[in-house]
């Protein structure tokens, strides 16, 4: 239910932006984005790629991405999905063809775990027009890409040399919080890949933007392992005022994304001050 509230929250924010903070062309783009993502997500639902709740979350997410961010931000999101699905399909194919990642339905929790920070900062960027929010938004995708690449490639290529990130003891492959050299390098490459993509678009400080996104994405990937080790492997609980949460994979991804985005903002500020 709480995840469904995110759909309502972002939809409400979209209406406010549509009515109060967008020009005539933006309005047309948002409406077209709604119809386009609605059609695409419905097809994805029919083909069993998205669950019903996942479809609704993806419609909101798609409208925010294409409607507010345009083709540039849609490209980052598509690069994340396509690269992750291709790597997942290619690496899984030889062993178990029945369990291709493409055939699994994505839920709303997975959509928001990987896309919340991206959509949140995209809305902020659209309203304020501050470039730092656009960079932070892309860092959200970079963190998700980096983590996914690291999990898929690391889990496939190295079954023996996996260590727990908190104490570097050897653990079986696939353990929450486990890291391997191949996985870490893949995570770094994933973050750099998204960072480099920004060089094709016009930013006031292109190199600083690319470096900040790569750094933020990679730190997000590492913190996913740290949180995974703490909350999933050791099964610790997260105390938040009176509430006690038991973070599972999606919440861990969301928290790691937050760390990645915060690191990106900090790196961007530090580097831009150093440059000027």
């Amino acid at each position: 239910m709480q995840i469904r509230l995110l759909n309502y929250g972002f939809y409400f924010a979209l209406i406010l932006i549509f009515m109060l903070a967008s020009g005539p062309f933006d309005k047309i783009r948002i409406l077209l984005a709604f119809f386009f993502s609605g059609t695409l997500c419905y097809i994805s639902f029919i083909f069993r790629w998205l669950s019903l709740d996942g479809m609704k979350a993806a419609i909101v997410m798609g409208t925010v991405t294409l409607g507010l961010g345009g083709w540039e931000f849609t490209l980052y999101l598509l690069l994340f999905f396509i690269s992750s699905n291709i790597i997942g399909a290619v690496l899984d194919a030889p062993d178990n063809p029945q369990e291709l990642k493409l055939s699994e339905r994505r839920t709303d929790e997975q959509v928001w775990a990987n896309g919340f920070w991206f959509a949140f900062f995209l809305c902020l960027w659209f309203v304020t027009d501050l470039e730092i929010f656009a960079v932070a938004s892309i860092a959200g995708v970079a963190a998700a890409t980096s983590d996914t690449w690291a999990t898929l490639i690391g889990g496939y290529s190295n079954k023996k040399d996996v260590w727990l990130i908190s104490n570097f003891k050897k653990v079986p492959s696939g353990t929450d919080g486990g890291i391997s050299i191949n996985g870490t390098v893949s995570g770094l490459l994933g973050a750099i890949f998204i960072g480099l993509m920004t060089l094709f678009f016009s930013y006031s400080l292109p190199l600083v933007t690319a470096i900040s996104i790569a750094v933020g994405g990679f730190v997000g990937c590492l913190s996913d392992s740290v949180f995974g080790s703490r909350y999933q492997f050791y099964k610790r609980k997260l105390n938040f005022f009176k509430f006690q949460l038991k973070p599972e994979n999606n919440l861990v991804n969301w928290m790691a994304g937050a760390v990645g985005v915060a690191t990106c903002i900090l790196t961007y500020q530090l580097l831009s001050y150093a440059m000027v």
Partner: protein
Amino acid sequence: MSTKNIRRSGLKRKGAETMLFGKENYLLMTIGFVLLVTGFLIMRIENEINGFFSLFIAPWIIFAGFVTFGLGILKKNPALGDTAD
């Protein structure tokens, strides 16, 4: 429970007979659409940029229309139960 009893008790098999959107969803979407058309129609009828209805009434009706229409799409059909597939 036999098929006959299931039909008699009003229970439905999940996924097989349940629609993606329920009656409530379609009702909300229709109300939303009507509100949107009404809002824009009010602006068209008054036909003044700084008119009272165009500035203070129609935007709220259109806003309510967007909210209601979206709720119609996002609200989960209770007949589907917990299974989102």
